[in-house]
């Protein structure tokens, strides 16, 4: 019997929800541990098997000087490095700091700034090291995570679509919440993977899987404006859990500029 591949799970700035998704595979967890050696996963076990690791799952974004160094160490001990979730793939909700006026941020002063070490930007893992695959979502989808791990075990490419949520919605046979219901929905510009969850609950998609591969964000924004959203509301819709993903970042910048200089077209 060949040795089981070694899996490591690493955490950076995050809510723990994506690695929890692995523990939420209740039916698959124990069989999975038979196929893969869970070699480093501090949230689940205090046992540590030394690296190098065949597959590293990385949750969270890079926000501190120490983490900036640590991600390089993780890369060095990982044969395959896979980022999981919006924080690791785009910088996450904490990337809202990237748009903040630092002076304004400082006005929310508490006690001792000297106790804290933090960077002025929250960045995705791929901004610092080579990433072999990025799994989207805030949080990642359990089925996609299992598909990804199965593909890793089989040495094949994972079947993770990059088309929009609209495709999943149509496939599900759901009535369009935007066309029929007038609800603001980011489904047309957001990557599939959730199974069109929000439309199934009678709400518009809020973009937690980040931009799809060919997002027409300007057309989407025009549609949102036509539905009665003002510039600031459109800006806020693009600026949430994947605010720093490039297409969403550019679109929110465009509305920020339009708000500051009404009537002028400003490059993002």
């Amino acid at each position, binding site marked *: 019997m060949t040795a089981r591949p070694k899996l490591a799970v690493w955490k950076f700035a995050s809510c*723990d929800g994506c690695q929890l998704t692995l523990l939420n595979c209740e*039916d698959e*967890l124990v069989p999975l541990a038979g196929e893969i050696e869970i070699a480093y996963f501090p949230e689940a076990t205090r046992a540590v098997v030394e690296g190098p690791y065949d597959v590293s799952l990385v949750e969270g974004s890079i926000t501190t000087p120490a983490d900036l160094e640590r991600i390089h160490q993780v890369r060095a001990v990982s044969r395959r490095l896979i980022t999981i979730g919006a924080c690791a793939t785009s910088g996450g909700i904490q990337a809202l700091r990237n748009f903040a006026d*630092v002076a304004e941020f400082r006005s929310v002063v508490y006690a001792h700034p000297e106790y804290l070490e933090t960077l002025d930007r929250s960045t995705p893992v791929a901004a610092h090291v080579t990433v072999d695959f990025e799994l989207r979502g805030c949080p990642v989808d359990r089925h996609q995570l299992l598909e990804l791990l199965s593909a890793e075990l089989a040495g094949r490419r994972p079947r993770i679509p990059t088309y929009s949520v609209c495709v999943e919605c149509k496939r599900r046979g759901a009535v369009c919440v935007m066309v029929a219901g007038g609800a603001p929905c980011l489904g047309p510009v957001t990557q599939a993977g959730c199974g069109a969850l929000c439309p199934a609950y009678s709400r518009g998609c809020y973009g937690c899987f980040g931009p799809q591969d060919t997002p027409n964000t300007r057309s989407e924004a025009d549609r949102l404006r036509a539905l009665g959203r003002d510039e600031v509301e459109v800006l806020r819709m693009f600026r949430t859990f994947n605010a720093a993903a490039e297409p969403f970042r550019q679109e929110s910048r465009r509305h920020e500029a339009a708000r500051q200089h009404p009537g002028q077209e400003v490059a993002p």
Partner: protein
Amino acid sequence: MNHKLTDGGRVLRVGALARVEGEGAMHVAFDGADVADVQLRIYEPPRFYEAFLRGRAHTEPPDITARICGICPVAYQTSACWAVEDACGVGVPEPVRLMRRLLYCGEWIESHALHVFLLHAPDFLGYDGAIEMAADHADVVELGLRLKKAGNTLMEVVGGRSVHPVNVRVGGFYRFPSRTELGRLRPVLERALDDALVAVGLVSGFDFPDFEQPHEYLSLRADHGYPIEAGTEVVTSTGRSFPVSQFAQQIEETHVAHSNALHARLAGSDAPYVVGPLARYTLNSDRLSGVAREAARGAGLGERCRNPFRSIVVRAVEIVEACHEALAIIDGWADGSPPRVEVPPRAGEGYGASEAPRGTLFHRYVLDGAGIIQDAQIVPPTSQNQAAVEADLRTMAAAWSGLDDHALQHRCEQAIRSYDPCISCATHFLDLTVERS
């Protein structure tokens, strides 16, 4: 890693605490046999929620603050909803409150099962983690995973998904699940209730170190039932009681050098206080349903429980309570009521609290007339407990000073895990040190 000091002192550092949610470490310093210092270090990076909530719309806190914690997102969503609705002067109808309670029961079952079986039980049975434990105790791990899945299934039906549910909004829900959808949960929850009763029996047989916390306990208290999604007032074990709106005045938060989480104290007191299962149970055991009360009695719990190691038993009893409550809500559910009320914005300040699995979670928002957030304050359970955990570790470590470093490290780790710290939640925005990239 341990460092011998040349003066005969000893410093124990436990880096990267395992089987806790988030990133923490512990520092214990001995001077001879005396404990010189104990620090629970929280180095989870700050994420600045309270800063970036400013300027957001009053409809956004449920989705945004859910991301503070992937393990208890419903707690954040619920406290946020109460606080925003309070600021806007809107009360929600009873079906909305009941659906919040139902969703919250799912989170209690999921989160408590995670802690009891995957994070805490391995300490008592002598394993590094649940996967290792499964080799010898497959039935125990299966029981835990089945319970955890029942909680997740409930959250998926009501909330759409278990991590960061999508169905919660200010004013209520996007849609109510139908009586038929809820009815399908019945067999799952009946089984879960049976499993939870087995779990109480199982964990009550563990071997618990003798230890009594001296601290003041704090919890919500409700007119009826065990406090879960809300309470009518905040009560403490020394007889304090105040409305949720007074929380910010009654609790003082301070920033200490070794932690990115704030320490909390009750106003006018230098002593730490405790929130969470032990506090909730001690202050509300009279409010438990018959089945949970009987399970608690069978497990040897009195009306109060002050031993943090036994919190695993209280958590199991709370799983029983949550399963019982969920079944009662499902059985009483009638289709047809509107899933939400409108919450038009207005200028004002609002407060909300609920009982997260790890204890009382408080939110406060100040809105302008258009509903834009001017100020936000979030007081999570783990930061409230941090001072008490350190105080307890100081006492425990003194008694354990004769142990070798390896044994001492393991004991201290186990002690910390019994508090179920959720470190992702507790890390707070304080201020920003800028490094230009």
